[in-house]
């Protein structure tokens, strides 16, 4: 059974590129346009991995990360941050909030799949 990945980004083109890459590798993809939308969808689907941007309207990626970690199902689900941000301070915040990894945009499809494969097997 294909594993499901929740891809969260307010940029439609990034969502499409992520979905294209992941679907091509056999994953099922649920897309969300911001943190709030992602939280709603995370409750509706039991996803195997979350790949989220940080700077988004309504709810940003760090808030989403904190909110997800409070939910029983998402305490151990890998959550990867895919963002343009790469400062040490914000990375430390993400790490403290329970992020599994940090990927700086732009992503390379092969490397993205390698990392996902590594964290969800």
């Amino acid at each position, binding site marked *: 059974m294909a594993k499901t990945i929740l891809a969260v980004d307010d940029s439609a*083109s*990034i969502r499409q590129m992520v979905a294209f890459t992941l679907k091509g590798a056999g994953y099922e993809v649920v897309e969300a346009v911001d943190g709030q939308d992602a939280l709603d969808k995370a409750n509706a689907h039991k996803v195997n991995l979350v790949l989220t941007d940080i700077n988004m309207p309504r709810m940003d990626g760090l808030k989403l990360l904190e909110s997800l970690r409070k939910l029983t199902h998402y305490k151990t689900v890998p959550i990867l941050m895919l963002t343009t941000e790469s*400062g040490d301070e914000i990375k430390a915040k993400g790490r403290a909030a329970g*992020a599994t990894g940090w990927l*700086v*945009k732009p*992503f390379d499809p092969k490397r993205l799949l390698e990392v996902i494969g590594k964290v969800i097997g």
Partner: protein
Amino acid sequence: MAEMQLGNDKIDTQIAYELVPADLDEALCNVEADEYFMSIKGELNQIDRLVSDAVNNLVINFRYISKLTKSHHDMVLAIEKMAAPEGSKPILELLEKQMIIADKIEQELEMAITSLQFGDLVTQLLAHTARQVEILNIELQRIDRQSNWKSGKKTSHVLHEGISKAVNVANAKSKRKPVVQQGMQMGDIELF
């Protein structure tokens, strides 16, 4: 005396800041300056729309080319199967070349996925710049209001200080720059 005067200026500036109610922060004094800043914001929005439109079109093109490539790949495989029993060497060689071309197209498409992410980076930078322009406009309007309230001429020194202060406040109010990338090469990856 000079010290006293300086002290008074300092207090005046502080009072002026305190006197400006929060709801007046948005009120405009200098229409020309506001129009100028608005036109800059309008141009930044125009760039954002053009980039977004171009990215949307490129993504549509990308998906279509990708579909065609897959069809082409499948077709070559089907022809190869049909040609195999005949054992026609020239046909099989031609199909082999076709497969190499199909693989190369797929590799190029993968590279295009990285490049096509430029729209997101540009949009974030434009939003950041638009916010900086807006904050600077508000701070300069504040100086303008203060100078209107004061009687007498402002010395160039005071005006210079006021503008520096406006720029410093605008800097302080600006959020951190959301994009640090200078090119479209792949970003770093770190697993915690």
